[in-house]
Protein backbone atom coordinates (compact mmCIF):
# COMPACT_ATOMS: atom_id res chain seq x y z
CA UNK A 1 0.00 0.00 0.00
CA UNK A 2 1.28 3.44 -0.83
CA UNK A 3 0.49 5.61 2.16
CA UNK A 4 3.20 8.06 3.11
CA UNK A 5 1.70 9.97 6.01
CA UNK A 6 0.24 9.08 9.42
CA UNK A 7 -2.54 7.35 7.45
CA UNK A 8 -0.13 4.43 7.01
CA UNK A 9 -0.52 3.69 10.75
CA UNK A 10 -4.28 3.72 10.30
CA UNK A 11 -3.95 1.26 7.48
CA UNK A 12 -1.72 -1.06 9.52
CA UNK A 13 -4.18 -0.91 12.44
CA UNK A 14 -6.88 -1.94 10.01
CA UNK A 15 -5.08 -5.14 9.00
CA UNK A 16 -6.45 -7.56 11.70
CA UNK A 17 -10.00 -6.35 11.00
CA UNK A 18 -9.59 -6.90 7.27
CA UNK A 19 -8.17 -10.38 7.81
CA UNK A 20 -11.04 -11.25 10.19
CA UNK A 21 -13.57 -10.00 7.64
CA UNK A 22 -11.93 -12.03 4.83
CA UNK A 23 -11.97 -15.14 7.02
CA UNK A 24 -15.67 -14.63 7.77
CA UNK A 25 -16.35 -14.18 4.06
CA UNK A 26 -14.51 -17.37 3.19
CA UNK A 27 -16.46 -19.31 5.82
CA UNK A 28 -19.77 -18.14 4.43
CA UNK A 29 -20.46 -15.62 7.24
CA UNK A 30 -20.80 -12.57 5.05
CA UNK A 31 -22.96 -10.60 7.54
CA UNK A 32 -20.24 -11.01 10.18
CA UNK A 33 -17.62 -9.86 7.67
CA UNK A 34 -19.59 -6.67 7.06
CA UNK A 35 -20.11 -6.18 10.81
CA UNK A 36 -16.35 -6.21 11.32
CA UNK A 37 -15.58 -3.85 8.47
CA UNK A 38 -18.29 -1.19 8.56
CA UNK A 39 -17.28 0.32 11.97
CA UNK A 40 -13.78 0.90 10.58
CA UNK A 41 -15.19 3.74 8.51
CA UNK A 42 -16.12 5.48 11.78
CA UNK A 43 -12.54 5.08 13.01
CA UNK A 44 -11.31 6.88 9.90
CA UNK A 45 -13.83 9.66 10.44
CA UNK A 46 -12.73 10.00 14.09
CA UNK A 47 -9.07 10.17 13.02
CA UNK A 48 -9.95 12.85 10.48
CA UNK A 49 -11.95 14.85 13.04
CA UNK A 50 -9.09 14.79 15.55
CA UNK A 51 -6.44 16.01 13.12
CA UNK A 52 -4.79 19.09 14.52
CA UNK A 53 -3.59 20.30 11.16
CA UNK A 54 -5.64 19.84 7.99
CA UNK A 55 -2.79 18.68 5.78
CA UNK A 56 -3.94 18.09 2.19
CA UNK A 57 -1.85 14.93 1.67
CA UNK A 58 -3.16 13.37 4.90
CA UNK A 59 -6.77 14.20 4.00
CA UNK A 60 -6.36 12.78 0.51
CA UNK A 61 -4.84 9.56 1.83
CA UNK A 62 -7.73 9.25 4.29
CA UNK A 63 -10.12 9.56 1.36
CA UNK A 64 -8.27 6.72 -0.40
CA UNK A 65 -8.24 4.56 2.76
CA UNK A 66 -11.97 5.11 3.11
CA UNK A 67 -12.43 4.08 -0.53
CA UNK A 68 -10.43 0.92 0.21
CA UNK A 69 -12.93 -0.05 2.93
CA UNK A 70 -15.85 0.86 0.67
CA UNK A 71 -14.32 -1.39 -1.97
CA UNK A 72 -14.08 -4.35 0.44
CA UNK A 73 -17.68 -3.80 1.60
CA UNK A 74 -18.87 -3.77 -2.00
CA UNK A 75 -16.75 -6.83 -2.74
CA UNK A 76 -18.44 -8.70 0.11
CA UNK A 77 -21.84 -7.58 -1.22
CA UNK A 78 -21.07 -9.24 -4.58
CA UNK A 79 -20.59 -12.60 -2.88
CA UNK A 80 -23.60 -12.09 -0.63
CA UNK A 81 -25.84 -11.42 -3.64
CA UNK A 82 -24.42 -14.27 -5.72
CA UNK A 83 -24.96 -16.65 -2.84
CA UNK A 84 -28.57 -15.48 -2.56
CA UNK A 85 -29.03 -15.98 -6.32
CA UNK A 86 -29.73 -12.26 -6.78
CA UNK A 87 -27.94 -12.37 -10.11
CA UNK A 88 -29.02 -9.01 -11.59
CA UNK A 89 -28.20 -7.12 -8.38
CA UNK A 90 -24.86 -8.87 -8.09
CA UNK A 91 -23.89 -7.45 -11.50
CA UNK A 92 -24.56 -3.93 -10.21
CA UNK A 93 -22.55 -4.62 -7.03
CA UNK A 94 -19.72 -5.98 -9.18
CA UNK A 95 -19.66 -2.81 -11.28
CA UNK A 96 -19.63 -0.61 -8.17
CA UNK A 97 -16.73 -2.65 -6.80
CA UNK A 98 -14.86 -2.36 -10.10
CA UNK A 99 -15.37 1.42 -10.15
CA UNK A 100 -13.95 1.69 -6.63
CA UNK A 101 -11.07 -0.57 -7.65
CA UNK A 102 -10.33 1.72 -10.63
CA UNK A 103 -10.14 4.65 -8.24
CA UNK A 104 -7.70 2.75 -6.00
CA UNK A 105 -5.64 1.80 -9.02
CA UNK A 106 -5.54 5.38 -10.27
CA UNK A 107 -4.20 6.43 -6.89
CA UNK A 108 -1.51 3.80 -7.04
CA UNK A 109 -2.65 1.71 -4.09
CA UNK A 110 -3.55 -1.49 -5.84
CA UNK A 111 -0.20 -3.11 -6.56
CA UNK A 112 -0.80 -5.16 -3.44
CA UNK A 113 -4.41 -5.88 -4.44
CA UNK A 114 -3.84 -7.73 -7.73
CA UNK A 115 -5.68 -10.74 -6.30
CA UNK A 116 -8.91 -8.73 -6.38
CA UNK A 117 -8.26 -7.37 -9.88
CA UNK A 118 -7.87 -10.86 -11.32
CA UNK A 119 -10.97 -12.06 -9.52
CA UNK A 120 -13.15 -9.11 -10.59
CA UNK A 121 -12.12 -9.60 -14.23
CA UNK A 122 -12.99 -13.31 -14.12
CA UNK A 123 -16.27 -12.68 -12.30
CA UNK A 124 -17.33 -10.22 -15.01
CA UNK A 125 -16.91 -12.96 -17.62
CA UNK A 126 -19.56 -15.09 -15.93
CA UNK A 127 -22.28 -12.59 -16.76
CA UNK A 128 -24.16 -12.42 -20.06
CA UNK A 129 -23.43 -8.76 -20.81
CA UNK A 130 -21.45 -7.74 -23.90
CA UNK A 131 -23.39 -4.68 -25.02
CA UNK A 132 -24.69 -1.77 -22.97
CA UNK A 133 -26.85 1.31 -23.29
CA UNK A 134 -25.21 4.69 -23.41
CA UNK A 135 -26.83 8.12 -23.41
CA UNK A 136 -25.83 11.14 -25.47
CA UNK A 137 -26.97 14.54 -24.23
CA UNK A 138 -26.16 18.22 -24.38
CA UNK A 139 -25.75 20.28 -21.22
CA UNK A 140 -25.05 23.96 -20.66
CA UNK A 141 -21.94 23.41 -18.58
CA UNK A 142 -20.29 21.28 -15.92
CA UNK A 143 -20.02 22.75 -12.45
CA UNK A 144 -17.05 21.86 -10.24
CA UNK A 145 -18.24 20.23 -7.01
CA UNK A 146 -15.48 22.01 -5.08
CA UNK A 147 -15.46 25.63 -6.27
CA UNK A 148 -18.82 25.78 -8.07
CA UNK A 149 -17.23 27.26 -11.22
CA UNK A 150 -17.32 25.90 -14.77
CA UNK A 151 -14.87 22.97 -14.52
CA UNK A 152 -13.98 23.12 -18.23
CA UNK A 153 -12.62 26.65 -18.06
CA UNK A 154 -9.54 28.27 -16.56
CA UNK A 155 -11.81 29.88 -13.92
CA UNK A 156 -11.72 26.53 -12.11
CA UNK A 157 -8.38 25.18 -10.89
CA UNK A 158 -9.60 21.66 -10.21
CA UNK A 159 -9.30 18.55 -12.34
CA UNK A 160 -12.16 16.13 -12.58
CA UNK A 161 -11.52 13.00 -10.49
CA UNK A 162 -8.57 14.45 -8.54
CA UNK A 163 -8.51 14.89 -4.75
CA UNK A 164 -8.31 18.25 -2.99
CA UNK A 165 -8.16 18.36 0.82
CA UNK A 166 -9.90 15.02 1.06
CA UNK A 167 -12.60 15.80 -1.47
CA UNK A 168 -12.92 14.61 -5.05
CA UNK A 169 -13.58 17.15 -7.80
CA UNK A 170 -16.71 16.03 -9.60
CA UNK A 171 -18.14 17.60 -12.75
CA UNK A 172 -21.86 18.15 -12.26
CA UNK A 173 -23.81 18.55 -15.49
CA UNK A 174 -26.03 21.64 -15.34
CA UNK A 175 -29.17 22.19 -17.35
CA UNK A 176 -29.57 19.31 -19.74
CA UNK A 177 -30.91 21.01 -22.83
CA UNK A 178 -31.26 17.96 -25.04
CA UNK A 179 -31.25 14.19 -24.66
CA UNK A 180 -29.81 13.43 -28.05
CA UNK A 181 -29.76 9.66 -28.32
CA UNK A 182 -29.48 6.33 -26.58
CA UNK A 183 -26.95 4.09 -28.26
CA UNK A 184 -25.84 0.50 -27.83
CA UNK A 185 -22.12 0.29 -27.18
CA UNK A 186 -19.55 -2.25 -26.06
CA UNK A 187 -17.53 0.14 -23.91
CA UNK A 188 -19.86 2.32 -21.84
CA UNK A 189 -18.92 4.64 -19.00
CA UNK A 190 -21.49 2.84 -16.87
CA UNK A 191 -21.91 -0.91 -17.34
CA UNK A 192 -25.02 -0.93 -15.14
CA UNK A 193 -27.15 0.24 -18.11
CA UNK A 194 -28.07 -3.21 -19.41
CA UNK A 195 -31.05 -5.28 -20.36
CA UNK A 196 -32.20 -6.61 -17.00
CA UNK A 197 -32.83 -10.35 -17.02
CA UNK A 198 -34.78 -12.13 -14.28
CA UNK A 199 -32.61 -13.87 -11.70
CA UNK A 200 -33.84 -17.28 -12.89
CA UNK A 201 -33.19 -16.50 -16.57
CA UNK A 202 -31.11 -18.84 -18.72
CA UNK A 203 -28.55 -16.03 -19.14
CA UNK A 204 -27.60 -16.25 -15.45
CA UNK A 205 -27.02 -20.01 -15.49
CA UNK A 206 -23.33 -19.63 -14.66
CA UNK A 207 -23.97 -17.29 -11.74
CA UNK A 208 -26.50 -19.71 -10.28
CA UNK A 209 -23.97 -22.52 -10.70
CA UNK A 210 -21.39 -20.45 -8.79
CA UNK A 211 -24.03 -19.82 -6.13
CA UNK A 212 -24.50 -23.58 -5.78
CA UNK A 213 -20.75 -24.08 -5.43
CA UNK A 214 -20.62 -21.42 -2.70
CA UNK A 215 -23.61 -22.81 -0.79
CA UNK A 216 -22.24 -26.33 -0.90
CA UNK A 217 -18.78 -25.03 0.13
CA UNK A 218 -17.27 -26.62 -2.97
CA UNK A 219 -15.81 -23.23 -3.74
CA UNK A 220 -15.07 -20.52 -1.18
CA UNK A 221 -15.22 -16.90 -2.37
CA UNK A 222 -11.48 -16.32 -2.07
CA UNK A 223 -10.76 -19.61 -3.85
CA UNK A 224 -12.66 -18.52 -6.95
CA UNK A 225 -9.96 -18.25 -9.58
CA UNK A 226 -9.83 -18.58 -13.29
CA UNK A 227 -12.50 -19.56 -15.77
CA UNK A 228 -11.65 -22.00 -18.52
CA UNK A 229 -13.88 -21.74 -21.58
CA UNK A 230 -13.92 -24.71 -23.91
CA UNK A 231 -16.12 -26.84 -26.17
CA UNK A 232 -17.46 -30.17 -25.08
CA UNK A 233 -19.07 -32.99 -27.06
CA UNK A 234 -22.41 -33.85 -25.47
CA UNK A 235 -25.55 -35.84 -26.17
CA UNK A 236 -28.09 -33.46 -27.72
CA UNK A 237 -30.81 -33.18 -25.05
CA UNK A 238 -33.43 -32.25 -27.69
CA UNK A 239 -32.62 -35.13 -30.05
CA UNK A 240 -35.52 -37.46 -30.91
CA UNK A 241 -35.09 -40.50 -33.08
CA UNK A 242 -37.96 -40.45 -35.55
CA UNK A 243 -38.63 -41.80 -39.04
CA UNK A 244 -36.25 -40.53 -41.72
CA UNK A 245 -39.09 -39.02 -43.73
CA UNK A 246 -40.96 -37.61 -40.73
CA UNK A 247 -41.04 -33.86 -40.08
CA UNK A 248 -37.98 -32.85 -38.03
CA UNK A 249 -38.49 -32.31 -34.27
CA UNK A 250 -36.72 -28.93 -34.40
CA UNK A 251 -39.66 -27.25 -36.11
CA UNK A 252 -37.86 -26.37 -39.35
CA UNK A 253 -40.57 -28.03 -41.41
CA UNK A 254 -37.96 -30.11 -43.26
CA UNK A 255 -37.74 -33.89 -43.33
CA UNK A 256 -35.70 -35.35 -40.45
CA UNK A 257 -33.20 -36.92 -42.88
CA UNK A 258 -32.57 -33.49 -44.44
CA UNK A 259 -32.27 -31.67 -41.11
CA UNK A 260 -31.13 -32.85 -37.64
CA UNK A 261 -30.52 -36.54 -38.30
CA UNK A 262 -26.78 -36.04 -37.65
CA UNK A 263 -27.26 -33.99 -34.47
CA UNK A 264 -27.47 -36.74 -31.85
CA UNK A 265 -24.04 -35.69 -30.61
CA UNK A 266 -23.34 -31.94 -30.56
CA UNK A 267 -20.60 -29.53 -29.55
CA UNK A 268 -21.55 -27.36 -26.58
CA UNK A 269 -19.96 -24.37 -24.82
CA UNK A 270 -18.42 -25.36 -21.54
CA UNK A 271 -16.99 -23.36 -18.65
CA UNK A 272 -14.86 -24.74 -15.83
CA UNK A 273 -14.72 -22.65 -12.66
CA UNK A 274 -11.26 -23.34 -11.33
CA UNK A 275 -11.01 -23.03 -7.57
CA UNK A 276 -7.57 -22.56 -6.07
CA UNK A 277 -7.10 -22.71 -2.29
CA UNK A 278 -6.10 -19.22 -1.21
CA UNK A 279 -4.31 -18.21 1.95
CA UNK A 280 -6.26 -15.29 3.42
CA UNK A 281 -3.03 -13.72 4.67
CA UNK A 282 -1.75 -13.52 1.09
CA UNK A 283 -4.77 -11.78 -0.41
CA UNK A 284 -3.57 -8.30 0.52
CA UNK A 285 0.15 -7.64 0.60
CA UNK A 286 0.87 -5.18 3.40
Amino acid at each position, binding site marked *: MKFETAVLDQFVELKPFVLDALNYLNNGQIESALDVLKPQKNSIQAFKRDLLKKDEKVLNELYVLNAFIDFLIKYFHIWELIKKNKCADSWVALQHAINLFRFLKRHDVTKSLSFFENQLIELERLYPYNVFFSM*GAIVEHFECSICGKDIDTTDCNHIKGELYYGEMAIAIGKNI*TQIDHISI*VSNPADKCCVVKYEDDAEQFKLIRFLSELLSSQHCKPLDFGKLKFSKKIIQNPNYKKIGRNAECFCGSGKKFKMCCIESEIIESDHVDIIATPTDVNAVIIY
Partner: protein
Amino acid sequence: MKHLEHEDIEKEETLDDIEFQNFIDSNPTGLAIIPENYRDTSTLVSQPDSGDFAKWIRINNPNFKVDQRRSDKRLVLRSSDYWLPLVFLATDITLPIYLNLVSSYLFDKSKGLLKGETARVHLEVMFKDAKNGTNKKFSFVGDSETLIKIIKKIDINKLTDK
Protein backbone atom coordinates in the same frame (compact mmCIF):
# COMPACT_ATOMS: atom_id res chain seq x y z
CA MET B 1 -7.73 19.68 -48.45
CA LYS B 2 -6.50 16.11 -48.12
CA HIS B 3 -7.13 13.39 -45.58
CA LEU B 4 -3.96 11.58 -44.58
CA GLU B 5 -5.62 8.19 -44.74
CA HIS B 6 -6.92 8.82 -48.27
CA GLU B 7 -4.25 10.85 -49.99
CA ASP B 8 -5.91 10.42 -53.36
CA ILE B 9 -9.32 11.74 -52.36
CA GLU B 10 -9.90 15.44 -52.83
CA LYS B 11 -12.38 16.97 -50.40
CA GLU B 12 -14.72 19.86 -50.90
CA GLU B 13 -13.98 22.89 -48.82
CA THR B 14 -15.93 22.92 -45.56
CA LEU B 15 -16.54 25.48 -42.83
CA ASP B 16 -13.66 23.87 -40.90
CA ASP B 17 -11.34 24.55 -43.84
CA ILE B 18 -12.32 28.20 -44.02
CA GLU B 19 -12.01 28.61 -40.26
CA PHE B 20 -8.63 26.86 -40.28
CA GLN B 21 -7.36 29.15 -43.05
CA ASN B 22 -8.50 32.18 -41.02
CA PHE B 23 -6.65 30.72 -38.03
CA ILE B 24 -3.44 30.28 -40.03
CA ASP B 25 -3.77 33.75 -41.55
CA SER B 26 -3.76 35.26 -38.06
CA ASN B 27 -0.17 33.97 -37.52
CA PRO B 28 -1.00 32.09 -34.34
CA THR B 29 1.19 30.01 -32.03
CA GLY B 30 0.26 26.85 -30.15
CA LEU B 31 -3.06 25.18 -30.73
CA ALA B 32 -6.71 26.14 -30.80
CA ILE B 33 -9.56 24.00 -29.47
CA ILE B 34 -12.57 24.40 -31.73
CA PRO B 35 -16.21 23.81 -30.74
CA GLU B 36 -18.27 22.09 -33.43
CA ASN B 37 -21.75 21.74 -34.79
CA TYR B 38 -23.22 18.52 -33.49
CA ARG B 39 -25.98 16.87 -35.53
CA ASP B 40 -29.04 19.12 -35.46
CA THR B 41 -27.90 21.49 -32.71
CA SER B 42 -28.12 25.14 -33.68
CA THR B 43 -25.28 26.21 -31.40
CA LEU B 44 -21.61 25.27 -31.15
CA VAL B 45 -20.90 22.34 -28.85
CA SER B 46 -17.69 21.21 -27.13
CA GLN B 47 -16.67 17.58 -27.29
CA PRO B 48 -16.94 15.74 -23.93
CA ASP B 49 -13.24 15.82 -23.06
CA SER B 50 -12.39 19.26 -24.51
CA GLY B 51 -12.15 21.10 -21.20
CA ASP B 52 -10.29 18.32 -19.39
CA PHE B 53 -7.80 17.98 -22.26
CA ALA B 54 -7.17 21.74 -22.43
CA LYS B 55 -6.59 21.89 -18.67
CA TRP B 56 -4.29 18.87 -18.84
CA ILE B 57 -2.14 20.53 -21.54
CA ARG B 58 -1.91 23.77 -19.58
CA ILE B 59 -0.74 21.92 -16.46
CA ASN B 60 1.56 19.35 -18.05
CA ASN B 61 2.88 21.32 -21.02
CA PRO B 62 2.71 24.98 -19.99
CA ASN B 63 4.95 25.97 -22.93
CA PHE B 64 2.12 25.22 -25.37
CA LYS B 65 -0.27 28.09 -25.89
CA VAL B 66 -3.86 26.80 -25.78
CA ASP B 67 -6.62 28.92 -27.26
CA GLN B 68 -9.87 27.38 -26.04
CA ARG B 69 -12.70 28.85 -28.11
CA ARG B 70 -15.93 29.39 -26.20
CA SER B 71 -18.86 27.10 -26.90
CA ASP B 72 -22.47 27.48 -25.88
CA LYS B 73 -23.03 23.91 -24.79
CA ARG B 74 -21.20 20.72 -23.81
CA LEU B 75 -21.73 17.31 -25.33
CA VAL B 76 -22.07 14.38 -22.93
CA LEU B 77 -21.47 10.86 -24.23
CA ARG B 78 -21.72 8.10 -21.65
CA SER B 79 -19.08 5.99 -23.29
CA SER B 80 -15.70 5.23 -21.75
CA ASP B 81 -13.97 6.50 -24.91
CA TYR B 82 -12.09 9.78 -24.87
CA TRP B 83 -13.68 12.32 -27.18
CA LEU B 84 -11.16 15.01 -27.97
CA PRO B 85 -12.03 18.26 -29.69
CA LEU B 86 -11.22 19.37 -33.20
CA VAL B 87 -7.83 21.06 -32.84
CA PHE B 88 -6.09 23.55 -35.14
CA LEU B 89 -2.32 23.43 -34.98
CA ALA B 90 -0.23 26.52 -35.56
CA THR B 91 3.00 25.97 -37.44
CA ASP B 92 5.09 25.77 -34.25
CA ILE B 93 3.41 22.46 -33.29
CA THR B 94 3.81 19.56 -35.68
CA LEU B 95 1.38 16.69 -36.02
CA PRO B 96 3.71 14.12 -34.40
CA ILE B 97 4.22 16.46 -31.43
CA TYR B 98 0.47 16.86 -31.05
CA LEU B 99 -0.16 13.11 -31.34
CA ASN B 100 2.50 12.46 -28.71
CA LEU B 101 0.69 14.94 -26.50
CA VAL B 102 -2.54 12.99 -26.97
CA SER B 103 -0.70 9.75 -26.27
CA SER B 104 0.62 11.13 -22.96
CA TYR B 105 -2.88 12.35 -22.06
CA LEU B 106 -4.29 8.88 -22.72
CA PHE B 107 -1.53 7.28 -20.68
CA ASP B 108 -2.41 9.55 -17.78
CA LYS B 109 -6.12 8.82 -18.09
CA SER B 110 -5.55 5.07 -18.42
CA LYS B 111 -4.19 4.64 -14.91
CA GLY B 112 -7.51 3.29 -13.63
CA LEU B 113 -7.96 0.70 -16.35
CA LEU B 114 -8.10 -2.96 -15.44
CA LYS B 115 -5.69 -5.48 -16.98
CA GLY B 116 -6.53 -6.06 -20.64
CA GLU B 117 -8.50 -2.82 -21.06
CA THR B 118 -7.35 -0.11 -23.46
CA ALA B 119 -8.36 3.51 -23.80
CA ARG B 120 -10.04 4.46 -27.08
CA VAL B 121 -9.81 7.96 -28.41
CA HIS B 122 -11.62 10.00 -31.07
CA LEU B 123 -9.68 12.94 -32.44
CA GLU B 124 -9.53 15.36 -35.34
CA VAL B 125 -6.71 17.77 -36.00
CA MET B 126 -6.04 20.26 -38.80
CA PHE B 127 -2.59 21.49 -39.66
CA LYS B 128 -0.63 23.14 -42.43
CA ASP B 129 1.81 20.89 -44.24
CA ALA B 130 4.93 23.04 -44.20
CA LYS B 131 6.45 21.22 -47.19
CA ASN B 132 3.79 21.94 -49.80
CA GLY B 133 1.71 24.55 -48.01
CA THR B 134 -1.54 22.59 -48.10
CA ASN B 135 -3.98 22.33 -45.23
CA LYS B 136 -4.57 18.79 -43.98
CA LYS B 137 -6.93 17.06 -41.64
CA PHE B 138 -6.08 13.97 -39.62
CA SER B 139 -8.90 11.94 -38.08
CA PHE B 140 -8.42 8.98 -35.80
CA VAL B 141 -10.60 6.61 -33.80
CA GLY B 142 -8.83 3.82 -32.00
CA ASP B 143 -6.86 2.70 -28.99
CA SER B 144 -3.72 4.24 -27.59
CA GLU B 145 -1.47 1.42 -28.80
CA THR B 146 -2.57 1.95 -32.41
CA LEU B 147 -2.05 5.68 -32.01
CA ILE B 148 1.54 5.10 -30.88
CA LYS B 149 2.11 2.86 -33.93
CA ILE B 150 0.75 5.59 -36.21
CA ILE B 151 3.01 8.21 -34.64
CA LYS B 152 5.98 5.97 -35.40
CA LYS B 153 4.78 5.36 -38.96
CA ILE B 154 4.19 8.96 -39.91
CA ASP B 155 6.90 10.14 -42.22
CA ILE B 156 8.17 12.98 -40.10
CA ASN B 157 10.16 14.51 -42.94
CA LYS B 158 7.08 14.61 -45.11
CA LEU B 159 4.88 16.24 -42.52
CA THR B 160 7.21 18.48 -40.60
CA ASP B 161 9.66 19.97 -43.07
CA LYS B 162 9.60 23.71 -42.62
